């Protein structure tokens, strides 16, 4: 099972809303209790939608009075209007719905549950003060991405409104409840107009697939024992930890060294993977051997090798330096998980599997390339953060080297260094070392992001070639082969 994402929960809510609408249209309410319950669950669903809208909009003081003159944008006003309309109709102070005996009640209760779970999932990316606590949390505050999520929510509202009309009709036809109890639900048009207000302001701008819909839990729960899945999760934790700490004084060179070694290994594995796919390409895609696929695969392999060499130099530089900050045990543990997961997927007994075994078919090729994409992107991101971390450590004078290892040339004109060498003390990293570290990080982050792009092109080309059925052949791999990726 893959970790759940926001988009999936919202999809679940949508299908339950649809099921609820169909159920209330098809089946009468048998008793006053059933009617009361259906009304409560429906209103609770509206409350769920309202809470969700409120969460996405965030707290904008001016929006508490949406009809007053404010400087808020028309988008914010539309969102506030929708939220108000929902809140007016939502349940207030009612007890939690009991066991629902009409299928519509069950469906609506499920939809409200999915919506609240989706909101809670988003909230795992924030701390109690709504600040970002994960490297992905910026998406929640990005105006375009947030608006996209609101538009998707407005579509849910639009789908929910007719259910209220049918519910009111059912209640009134059986005279289960007095008319005022459902009067506000009889006309769905105001709610739908509120939803349209949001939908009409939707600028049809291409939104990256990995927008808010792609967000997963900030801390995915432990998975089963598939080493590659565990490695992908460990990468996620390392990324989170690196982001949390890159601006704090708790990262030392031995921790940075582990991350750099991880970058070396991940790029090496990525290079081997694309190379293996390239070697098998003539068999896997016989009709495509003259297309652009071989070229992009070769380019990706070489970009990954270059990046791996660049990270190795960073690693070498770090190995000669020391900081008073000890190696982080969590980083070490997750490094081991990633290392073993990568090894499990690509090697048998310390040797690379040969391409036939590594990529027996197209699905395996896409699976392998897809699985390595997120570690590759993550080490590149982490590298960019650590470039700053290392620069800060150097500036703060926290990076040392044992003076005993200084050569005669290095201490020649520096009496203090001579004394330090004799006293076997540690001295700050030399200007040459500082430069080497700085250049190392800057070169590595550059080639690393190039490798990520080239790798992305290779993956896209392989996927495209696979899903476009060749003439006379309909065999194609399902896109879901790529969807096992963890939440990113």
């Amino acid at each position, binding site marked *: 099972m893959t970790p759940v994402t926001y988009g999936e929960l919202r999809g679940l809510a949508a299908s339950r809303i649809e099921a609820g609408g169909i159920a209330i249209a098809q089946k009468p309410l048998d008793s006053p209790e059933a009617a009361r319950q259906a009304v409560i669950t429906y209103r609770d669903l509206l409350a769920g939608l309202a809470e969700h809208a409120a969460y996405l909009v965030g707290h904008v003081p001016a929006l508490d009075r949406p009809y007053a003159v404010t400087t808020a944008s028309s988008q914010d006003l539309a969102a506030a209007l929708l939220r108000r309309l929902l809140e007016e109709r939502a349940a207030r102070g009612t007890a939690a719905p009991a066991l629902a005996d009409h299928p519509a009640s069950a469906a609506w209760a499920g939809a409200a549950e999915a919506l609240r779970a989706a909101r809670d999932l988003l909230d795992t990316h924030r701390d109690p003060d709504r600040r970002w606590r994960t490297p992905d949390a910026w998406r929640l505050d990005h105006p375009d991405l947030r608006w996209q999520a609101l538009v998707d929510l407005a579509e849910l509202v639009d789908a929910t409104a007719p259910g209220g009309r049918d519910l009111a009709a059912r209640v009134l036809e059986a005279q289960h409840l007095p008319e005022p109890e459902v009067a506000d639900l009889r006309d769905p048009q105001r709610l739908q107009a509120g939803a349209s207000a949001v939908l009409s302001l939707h600028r049809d701008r291409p939104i990256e697939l990995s927008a808010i819909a792609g967000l997963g839990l900030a801390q995915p729960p432990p998975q089963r024992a598939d080493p590659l899945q565990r490695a992908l999760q460990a990468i996620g934790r390392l990324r989170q930890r690196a982001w949390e700490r890159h601006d704090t004084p708790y990262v030392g060179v*031995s921790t940075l*060294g*582990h991350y750099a*070694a991880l970058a*070396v*290994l991940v790029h*090496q*594995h990525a*290079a*081997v993977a694309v190379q293996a796919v390239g070697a098998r390409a003539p068999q896997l895609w016989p009709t495509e051997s003259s297309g652009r696929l071989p070229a992009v695969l070769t380019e990706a392999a070489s970009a990954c*090798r270059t990046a*791996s*060499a660049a990270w*190795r*130099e960073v*690693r*070498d530089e770090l*190995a000669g330096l*020391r900081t*008073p900050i*000890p*190696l982080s045990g969590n980083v*070490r543990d997750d*490094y081991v998980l990633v*290392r073993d997961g990568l*090894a499990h997927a690509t*090697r048998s*007994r*310390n040797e*690379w599997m040969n391409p036939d075994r590594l990529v027996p078919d197209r699905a395996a090729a896409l699976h392998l390339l897809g699985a390595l994409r997120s570690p590759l992107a993550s080490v590149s991101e982490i590298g960019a953060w650590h470039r700053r971390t290392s620069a800060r450590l150097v500036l703060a004078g926290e990076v040392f080297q*044992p*003076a*005993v*290892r200084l050569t005669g040339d290095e201490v020649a004109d520096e009496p203090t260094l001579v004394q330090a060498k004799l006293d*076997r*003390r*540690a001295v700050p990293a030399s200007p040459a070392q500082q430069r080497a570290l700085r250049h190392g990080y800057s070169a590595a982050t550059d080639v690393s992001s190039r490798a990520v792009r080239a790798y992305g092109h290779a993956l896209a080309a392989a996927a495209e070639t696979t899903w476009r059925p060749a003439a006379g052949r309909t065999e194609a791999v399902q896109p879901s082969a790529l969807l096992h990726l963890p939440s990113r």
Partner: protein
Amino acid sequence: MSDWPLAAEALIGATDAGSEHLADVWTLAYAAERATLRLAAAPGAEGEVRWTETAVELSAALAELERADPSLPGVAAAVDLGHPVPNSGSDAGDIVARLIRAALADLRVAPGGSTQETPAVARVSGLLSGAHLRLTGRLP
């Protein structure tokens, strides 16, 4: 270029006689780490993962040693075997493995250490064994 087998032998012999056992372990682990880093950077080693993996274990072992005794990088002898002789991949691996085994042996004969030292010694021992495993595919 330098003669790795000879240098390694000399190093193992010299640390054998030492009494400062943690410093000797540090010296051997340090020499092994430098050697693996050089091997990882050697031409033709682009696809080799084990040098990097071994170097990580060794650097974790060094970090652990230095946490137990922060003066180690200053007081222990830091020896670098120098550039490896080209095309000596498997031999070079054997030499590094011997350095690791020597470090482990020094660690094991340590006379009853202080209370802070004992857990550190256990962790270092695990990391050195791990390094040997990454390098050769088997435990020492």
